[in-house]
């Protein structure tokens, strides 16, 4: 017995979430979240710490019961068909969940037993996965002696041992060095190609969100925007022009009045979006009356998208959340 037969056919969503909410006493961690994930998609939840990403993952993986709303994974209800959901998914948590006193192989074998994977299949799959994450030479080594990156790779291998339909990754590269992060992403892309796996991940790294087919930007428990990375950036209205002038407020006013563009002043700089920055700039510089000190143009980043959708930078809200946790006396 391995993963239960999928109830999802054709291109119907493999994850269906409808007005999912979760409250912890007064605090609403996730409120009325709805989205779909298509089979084979690499879907990302982007948001600061405490935005409700882990809470959502915990509900989708049956570890937490929703306060209201419904969710289906692989066609199974996460509350009424927990067991089928569990067998349909692989999970890599933020914190390591390996038995450090056992070897890499023993950890994988335990997982195989727990999911009732057929012995011959298990051994074959173990070899295949350990090779993929480049740990085959350390298979009998004690996990205690592994580095953070090796542990994460082993966990990814373990999460795939029972041939899940969806792999959930909660901040898969948190606390890893850039080189290891890069390698983890290589594995994830390879996996998608080789196995047609659906991947759902959460991250607060903007550069990682760029890897995703689609991103849901989540803030304070709500989805603020959902689209492809390019689609999200496109919605901002094109390239970002940033300039500094002797009088920023007056310059912003001039841009608004002359061009009808919603220019804003923030951190001593004026910024606004135009469809084609490079073409726009020469004429603009010639015509502007306010004396400028500097001007530049760049493509919008997800950072800009996040700022536009939530009204703050991802870093600011992390501080908020930290304060919130302190006020609540800490949560486990």
């Amino acid at each position: 017995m391995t993963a239960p037969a999928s109830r999802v056919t054709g291109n119907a969503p493999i994850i269906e979430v409808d007005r999912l909410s979760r409250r912890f006493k007064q605090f609403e961690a996730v409120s009325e979240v709805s989205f779909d994930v298509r089979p084979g998609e690499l879907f990302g939840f982007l948001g600061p710490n405490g935005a409700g990403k882990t809470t959502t993952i915990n509900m989708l993986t049956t570890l937490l019961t929703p306060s209201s709303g419904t969710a289906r994974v692989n066609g199974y209800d996460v509350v009424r068909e927990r067991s089928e959901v569990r067998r349909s998914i692989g999970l890599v948590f933020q914190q390591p969940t390996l038995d450090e006193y056992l070897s890499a192989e023993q950890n994988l074998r335990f997982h195989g037993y727990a999911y009732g994977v057929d012995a011959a299949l298990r051994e074959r799959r173990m070899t295949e996965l350990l090779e993929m994450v480049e740990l085959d030479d350390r298979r009998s080594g004690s996990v205690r002696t592994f580095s953070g990156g090796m542990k994460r790779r082993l966990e990814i291998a373990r999460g795939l041992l029972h041939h899940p339909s969806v792999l959930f990754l909660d901040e898969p590269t948190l606390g890893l060095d850039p080189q290891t992060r890069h390698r983890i992403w290589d594995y994830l892309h390879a996996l998608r190609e080789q196995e047609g796996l659906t991947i759902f991940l959460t991250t607060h790294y903007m550069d990682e969100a760029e890897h995703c087919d689609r991103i849901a930007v989540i803030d304070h428990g709500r989805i603020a925007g959902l689209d492809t990375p390019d689609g999200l950036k496109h919605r901002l209205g094109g390239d970002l022009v940033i300039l500094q002038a002797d009088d920023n407020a007056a310059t912003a006013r001039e841009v608004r009045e002359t061009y009808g563009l919603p220019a804003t002043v923030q951190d001593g700089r004026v910024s606004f979006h135009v469809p084609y920055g490079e073409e726009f700039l020469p004429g603009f510089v010639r015509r502007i009356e306010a004396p400028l000190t500097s001007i530049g143009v760049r493509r919008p980043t997800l950072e800009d998208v996040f700022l536009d959708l939530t009204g703050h930078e991802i870093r600011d809200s992390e501080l908020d959340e930290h304060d919130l946790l302190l006020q609540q006396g800490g949560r486990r």
Partner: protein
Amino acid sequence: MSVSMTAPPRGRMGAAAAEVWRGTWVVAYRELLRFVRERSRLVGTLLQPLLFLVVFGVGFSGIIGPLAPGVDFVQFIFPGLIAMSVLTTALFAGVSVVWDREFGFLKEIMVAPLGRSGIVLGKAVGAAGVAVVQGLLMLVIAPFIGVSLSVGAVLAVIPVIVILAVALAGLGLILASFLRSQQGFQLLMQIIIFPMIFLAGVFFPIGSAPAWLQVASKINPLTYGVDALRQIFLGTGGSAELGVELFGRVMTIGQEVALMGGLGAVLLAIAVGAFTRQE
């Protein structure tokens, strides 16, 4: 009639039972695996009773004469020390859920398609397995201190250890549900393990203690385990001086085993309840 019609329907109940069963053996298997890999734990749990045997046994046997015809002090405390190693092992196995939670492995277990009650039973079964191996290892000392071993005695010891271990693992699991981190663990072990050992009649016959202490001893489940093992090794059955009297009758091995079994079932049921509610 088609084949699929005659095959037993694997309904929801059947699937749930399979998950409980798989949870039990998978978790028990891991406990045994860890025991094999962690040599220090094995040495630690064996050394403590040995130390007691040397310090108390050799030290006191000179001043304390035979406690009954043919039973000197070292022989008297030997079965109790086996019970003591069962206590440490089983209680630790139960409380180890706290470690699993802290180091994350519990999540791996919780998200797997395993029955919750199976996870609890697995801890108890694993504890019993480890306790039996340790108990049998301690029997190696028996010939050196003049305790004669028969095949029957060795075989009789195993079920007593199993039942005692399961009951104590249940107790450990209940204690674990009160602990949020390892911090309280040391204190808890101090206030549980040592009183339990000293009140269990490991070092003195219960019958010779003052009445108030006897009451405390008879509430202690370990008392019956110690006495059952003592009856098996030393053949002290029916002896009012060395045995345990409950409601005016000296307890037999059968009664003691039944009592521990009943208590174990209750403790495990509470542990299952506490675990399913909490996790």
